[in-house]
């Protein structure tokens, strides 16, 4: 039994359904905006299955400030990444939700990283953390994963160039010990890997594990898939173990990490449902559709059930060769821009009462 991947289908559904129903009640009571949306859709009722738990489109957090606590209780505001001029999501965390988020991350990562903190290389710039109260998705990711590390070293200078000599010193100092690396997929590829190829700098990280996330969109344009990424980073930098993760600032607790088989897994307190992009009905395992994410952690804002703009496929449940229980899945990427209009329709549909 590997916590938090130990619950099988039946017991997990019972556990999640109770918690998610409690959260729906909690948010109806504490957020007028959420209450209005639920009432305008199909009216409040308890879900009898996970598929019935009402969901909000994830883009809604870009349009509205949604919270189920008072402003005074907010200790942290997370914002989504977004290019300049684009609206960003704002996620409000109180102390309780911020703490459970940090704990969940440790639980989810423990089977991969262990309980001992490792010398850590952050493949990013330190300037991401400049604003102390409001964190971008990048900052929140770095800070969250920093818990697993010690002697943190930021490998990129503020101008996004690599600090090669700093890296060399770090590796020399921690020779022989296992090290951890963290970063965002595209930035690692562009500013670390490609830069090292261009400058003909080969590095051997030794016993090392890299955790990366943020999506493959830009790498797909360059025809780089997960296997290529792993292979190239091993060849060029000697990174032995590489685990991708899928998650979003809009839903705390939903961190899905790749197992040894390269599949993203749902931990005990989170789940995914794949929905048809047109009808929004849940579709069978093995078919690609829109990813709905559910988590029992979001208490300070109504984000326990969200329909994302990502396409994915559930590959199976409880039977991954890695031994972890729960659903395992893959993410194909963002729905094409042309369909984004369909996405704002989700909001309209949610109001009318989609079968969420």
């Amino acid at each position, binding site marked *: 039994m590997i916590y938090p991947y130990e619950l099988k289908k039946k017991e997990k559904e019972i556990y999640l359904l109770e918690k998610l129903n409690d959260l729906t009640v909690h948010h109806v009571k504490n957020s007028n905006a959420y209450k209005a949306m639920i009432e305008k859709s199909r009216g409040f009722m308890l879900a009898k299955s996970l598929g019935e738990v009402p969901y909000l489109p994830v883009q809604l957090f870009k349009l509205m400030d949604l919270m189920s606590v008072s402003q005074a209780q907010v200790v942290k505001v997370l914002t989504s990444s977004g290019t300049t001029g684009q609206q960003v999501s704002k996620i409000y965390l109180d102390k309780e939700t911020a*703490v459970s988020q940090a704990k969940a991350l440790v639980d989810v990562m423990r089977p991969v990283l262990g309980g001992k903190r490792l010398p850590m290389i952050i493949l990013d710039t330190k300037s991401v953390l400049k604003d102390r109260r409001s964190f971008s998705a990048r900052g929140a990711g770095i*800070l969250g994963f920093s818990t*697993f590390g010690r002697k943190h070293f930021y490998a990129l200078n503020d101008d996004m160039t690599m600090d090669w000599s700093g890296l060399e010193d770090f590796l020399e100092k921690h020779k022989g010990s296992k090290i951890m690396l963290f970063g965002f997929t595209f930035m690692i590829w562009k500013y670390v890997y490609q830069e090292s190829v261009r400058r003909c700098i080969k590095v051997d990280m030794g016993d090392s594990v890299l955790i990366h996330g943020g999506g493959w969109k830009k790498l797909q344009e360059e025809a780089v898939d997960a296997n290529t990424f792993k292979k190239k980073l091993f060849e060029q930098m000697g990174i032995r173990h590489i685990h991708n993760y899928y998650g979003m600032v809009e839903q705390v607790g939903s961190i899905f990490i790749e197992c040894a088989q390269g599949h993203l897994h749902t931990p005990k307190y989170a789940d995914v449902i794949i929905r048809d992009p047109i009808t929004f009905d849940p579709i069978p395992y093995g078919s690609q559709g829109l990813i709905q994410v559910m988590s029992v952690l979001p208490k300070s804002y109504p984000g326990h059930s969200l329909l994302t703009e990502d396409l994915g496929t559930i590959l199976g449940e409880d039977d991954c060769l890695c031994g972890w229980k729960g659903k395992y899945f893959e993410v194909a990427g963002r729905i094409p821009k042309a369909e984004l209009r369909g996405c704002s329709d989700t909001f309209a549909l949610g109001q009318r009462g989609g079968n969420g």
Partner: protein
Amino acid sequence: MNTQKLKSVFAEALDIEESFITDELTYNSIAEWDSVAHMALVAEIDDQFDIMLDTDDVLDLSSFSKAKEILTKYDIAFD
């Protein structure tokens, strides 16, 4: 002695006056002790006491008194 040492570690890492540091001082209760400062605090504790806190302890370390309790597990005695 270790209480005083831990106090200076807190003061240094959080950049606050030692007089603010009491057993009741808790994480996120003052602007200076936020998640960024927490990482600096943990690093400073590691260095000054020559230990390596486990991941779980980094999260549990939510007040000055809790810090003493945790450090006791690493054979650091407080009077």
